[in-house]
């Protein structure tokens, strides 16, 4: 995933902020413990949200421990430990990172991603062997994605389908309880968040994809022909916004159907957080570069 699902920090209560950080750091520690320190550089907010949502839906009371860590060696922080839903999110983070790197190399090549791929291979193998079903879901989705890209698919809905479907299945697979309706609800939340991530990422990447000549569903759907990039983006922004807000509206009305702990944090993320992200990216304030370096920075910024 890509790290777009973030809270709107200024609107959080301090205790909510600390608890969210506890989940985020807990995810980082879980990845480090189970898949090696290197895997922690791929940590991202989307997986932290998944861990938080799954814990909350299972009515799990978080076990907190004060620990220090490499980015904050002196000051100890509260960290959520021994949480199987965080471990689940960690598995998914590791699996997706591996496939994502592989995809980047196929698109762009380069020595840096190749090196990162090599480094993440060990973690991937461990995670995949324990999660055959999840690995299968992700692999199938990537295959479908590659095919659509090769056909230069010109419908954003069609192009987003594999990713949205994948998140739908992964979210639903994270539920271990008895309620029949919950995996359905989680699945629809995953579908819509997947759609939102896919489309916002495509919009965010327009300049980059024009420069590198890579596939981008929005360039295909709105028939980009070498016109001014800014004007092109401005012309499609309104329609893209409609799609993004629709996905968010469906996400939030589905979340209202769940019985959740940590409602304050989750609401902050899905209302304020996702909305402000949407507007920021549509107005052309592009998100930070998404590389290993950025992820390292985001660990740091949350530690500060």
């Amino acid at each position, binding site marked *: 995933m890509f790290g777009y699902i973030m809270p709107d920090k200024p*609107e959080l209560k301090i205790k909510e902020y600390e608890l969210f950080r506890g989940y985020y750091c807990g995810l980082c520690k879980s990845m480090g413990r189970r898949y090696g320190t290197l895997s922690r550089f791929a940590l991202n907010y989307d997986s932290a949200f998944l861990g938080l949502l799954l814990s909350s839906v299972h009515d799990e009371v978080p076990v907190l421990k004060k620990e220090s860590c490499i980015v904050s060696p002196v000051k100890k922080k509260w960290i959520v430990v021994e949480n199987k839903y965080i471990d689940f999110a960690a598995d998914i983070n590791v699996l997706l990172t591996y496939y994502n790197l592989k995809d980047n190399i196929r698109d762009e090549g380069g020595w840096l991603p190749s090196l990162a791929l090599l480094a993440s291979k060990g973690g991937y193998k461990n995670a995949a062997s324990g999660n055959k079903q999840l690995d299968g879901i992700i692999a199938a989705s990537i295959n479908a994605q590659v095919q659509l890209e090769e056909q230069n698919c010109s*419908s*954003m*809905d*069609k192009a987003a*389908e594999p990713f*949205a479907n994948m998140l739908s299945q992964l979210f639903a697979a994270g539920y271990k309880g008895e309620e029949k*309706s919950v995996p*359905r*609800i989680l699945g*629809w939340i995953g*579908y*819509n968040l997947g*759609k939102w991530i896919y489309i916002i990422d495509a919009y965010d990447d327009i300049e980059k994809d024009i420069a590198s000549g890579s596939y981008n569903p929005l360039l295909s*759907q709105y028939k980009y022909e070498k016109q001014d990039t800014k004007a092109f983006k401005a012309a499609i922004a309104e*329609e893209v*916004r*409609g*799609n*993004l*807000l*629709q*996905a*968010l*509206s*469906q996400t*939030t*009305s*589905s979340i*209202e*159907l769940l019985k959740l702990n940590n409602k304050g944090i989750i*609401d902050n993320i899905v*209302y*304020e957080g996702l*909305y402000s992200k949407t507007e920021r990216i549509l107005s052309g304030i592009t998100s930070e570069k998404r590389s290993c370096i950025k992820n390292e920075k985001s660990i740091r910024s949350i530690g500060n």
Partner: protein
Amino acid sequence: MRNPYEVLGIREGADAEGIKKAYKELVKKYHPDQYQNNPLSDLAEEKLKEINEAYDYLMKNVGNKNGSSSYRQQEEPRYRNNQSDADRNYYSQVRTNINMGNVAAAEEILNRISSRDGEWYYLSGLIFMRRGWYNEAVTNLKTAVDMEPSNFEFRDALNKVMFSGKQYQSTVYNRRGYSTGPDTCSMCQGLICADCCCEMMGGDLIGCC
């Protein structure tokens, strides 16, 4: 039955005013209109039923019998009655399947129809909506409206789709506590719009107009 206070999200022993207020909020949140294009609408309906039961139970015990059931009688029958009336032709089969949530079946029947009139695009739009293909949905609904500009049903469906994104936006604004600006305004517009719709169907949302 779950603890009715818990269902309404209020403390035990709340007074009639408090119960009514919480109830109104929840009905607004889980109203069928909010879930019209959401495949989880059946779950929202269940939730609303639970809320209605809790409300009726509490109102009976608090002793205010007049206040009960006001919303339920207005809303639920209206929401349910589009399910009956089946099997006259393909289109009504498609509609029935959409209402029951059988999107794949609806799509299959729709594809057997060779004519491409407004209704075809309208139904196709509804199917795309249920599948989460919002861009295709809007394109199809717009085509339907263009082909039959006077059809209220098509226009209404398109407006509702466009409105739900806006509604998310205004929820965010309200949560942040902004009380002025165009979004409160568009919310009022929506309310008045909804009131008009209700009145057309014999109900009423805003009592004074």
